[in-house]
Every structure is written in structure tokens, then in C-alpha cells.
């Protein structure tokens, strides 16, 4: 979780630091992520960070395996990792193990109203330092 917030803060800072409103996560069907626990931890730890007013969005990525013996790709129903075409157990998991920050949404507008945006255009360096 700290790791996620570090990543988000780093990226947001590089992009001008605007408040983060959404953190979109891709979570594999077979990843050890408990969405409730993650959301709870996020709500506690986001205080005082660039994501303080933000929320998490989750996208579940289905499990998919590819057979190294016959090349077939399939969804291992009930976590049965045996090829549905040739019964081989020599498989590679090609998706479904994700635990990834896909993208974040930055609210550029909330920091400044229109007049301030205009002023930023005139002396951008000063504003950037502030």
C-alpha cells in the first residue's frame, strides 16, 4: 500500500502535482489482493498525501493460461491448471496475476480558478516553484 502511494505521489509530482482523484488498479483474478483490505488501508494512509481526496477503482483481469505443450490458451476454471486441449500441466499464466496501477486521474482544475490559470501562463516559473 505504501508502495502504491509512493508510486502515485511520484507520478503526480512529475505531472505537476495536482490532486489525484482516481487511482485505477488492475487486479488479477488470481492475485493475493483483498479489495476490502486494500480500500481500508488506502483510506487510512491517503491522509496528507496527494491522493487524500481520491478513491480507488478496481478492474479485475481474468485468469488466462497458455499451454507450453500445444499452445492453447484458456481460462483455468476452478483453478484447474491442466490444459483443456491436451491435459498437459506445463502451463504459463499469461494474465490474471496483475497487481498494477494502470492509470491515475489528476484534477488540474481544482488548484486554481481561471484567472490563476491565466496568470500561470504569464509567469509559469514562479507558479511552478510555488
Amino acid at each position, binding site marked *: 500500500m505504501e508502495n502504491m502511494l509512493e508510486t502515485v505521489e511520484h507520478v503526480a509530482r512529475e505531472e505537476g502535482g495536482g490532486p489525484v482523484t482516481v487511482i485505477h488498479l488492475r487486479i488479477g483474478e488470481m492475485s493475493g489482493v483483498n479489495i476490502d483490505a486494500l480500500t481500508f488501508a488506502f483510506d487510512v494512509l491517503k491522509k496528507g498525501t496527494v491522493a487524500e481526496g481520491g478513491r480507488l477503482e478496481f478492474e479485475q483481469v481474468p485468469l488466462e493460461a497458455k499451454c507450453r505443450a500445444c499452445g492453447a490458451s484458456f481460462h483455468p476454471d476452478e*483453478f484447474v491448471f491442466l490444459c483443456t486441449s491436451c491435459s498437459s500441466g506445463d502451463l504459463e499464466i499469461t494474465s490474471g496475476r496483475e497487481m498494477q*496501477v494502470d492509470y491515475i486521474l489528476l484534477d488540474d482544475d481544482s488548484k486554481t480558478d481561471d484567472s490563476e490559470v491565466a496568470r500561470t501562463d504569464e509567469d509559469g516559473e514562479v507558479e511552478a516553484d510555488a
Partner: protein
Amino acid sequence: MHEIHVGEDLRNKNREIAAENRDHLSEHRIVTLNLMSAPGAGKTSLLVKTIPLLEDKYRIGVIEGDLQTNRDAERIEALGIQVFQIQTGGVCHLDAAMVHSALHALDLSEIDILLIENVGNLVCPAEFELGEDARIMLLSVSEGDDKPKKYPLMFRESSVLLLNKIDLLEHVDFDIEKAKREALEINPSLEIREVSCRTGAGIDEWAGWIERFYTERKGS
């Protein structure tokens, strides 16, 4: 409002540190096993039973992961071997950075086999590589035979599954053939062994597995 693509896996940092640990351990010719299970499955008891069988031939070190206490480490210390306790302070798994610190606290030149006891938890430890050579999972028969399908990741990520407390089998509704079959569906190359830390059943054979694994990795 604008969208910024990040695309970063949250385990990347841990993976990098785990790779450093692996290099470091490999330089010292140490074989490392990461022991994972639910709380109370018998990880510490397994160590207490196994270490005496290996001690004549190998120098053993232990890293103990625990949420708060030193109790497990004290049980291992009584065996007179090097042990380092990591108190995670409530974090439900060990990560590579914690193990990295522990490696600096141990005298690695005096260790052949390093046994890491993870925090008791069937989910998160499976997501965090530590730099180990193999992952060993314990499942006690009193936990129920539905665990493989409910917590498939750890079964998938482990090389060996030890079914512990096998002496209790007649007292619990644990269909051992079903548990084995479903564990093998998740991980067809999983090696499954039956043990009892209480009666000692299967412990000699398990210690034998560790010896063979060490020899495969490092030569005799």
C-alpha cells in the same frame, strides 16, 4: 482532469530487493526455503523437529517472521542455532526488504541452509518473493480440505506441500485424497508429503527432501 498512464506492478520494488537477496545468498552458497502457512499449521514445530535431523551435516540459520512476539524465535534459539526475529509490527507477511535487513544481522559465512518462517497467513505471503530457492507450504488437516480451491495462489506458488497433523486425520472431516487432487490441479508439479510434527511421522523423509534439494542446488 487528465489521465496519466502508470502501468507499474506494485510488486516491482519487492522483486528487485528479492533478486538482491537471492544474489547475496547465492554468493554465500546458502540454500533458502520460505515456509508459509495459515497461523497454527505447525511451521515452528516443523522447524523444531527438522533442524536436529540436519544439524550434523549442515549449518542451519533461521529467520522468524512474527507479527508481535518473540515466542517462535525463543523455541528455535533453544536449539542453539543462529536465529533472527523479524517483528513485522502487524504486517501480515514478510517482504524482501525485511529479509534483507535480517541477512545483514546474520553471519552468513556460518550458514548452509536458511529456513525462513513466514507470518501465518494463507494469502499475502504468496505474493512476496523473499529471495528463496523454494517455497514450502504447510496445511494442517484440521484446517479443512477446501483450502486448495479457496486459497489457490499459495498452492500454485509452492514447490512442496506438507500435510501436517496427519495423526489427527481420524478425528477430523478432512478428505485427504480430495485435498491432494485439488492441490495437484492447481499445481501439477507440487510435491505432496504427509507429516506429523507430534508423532514424528514423515519428518525423516522431509529432512531427506531438504538434503536432496541442497545437493541438487549446491552439490554435496
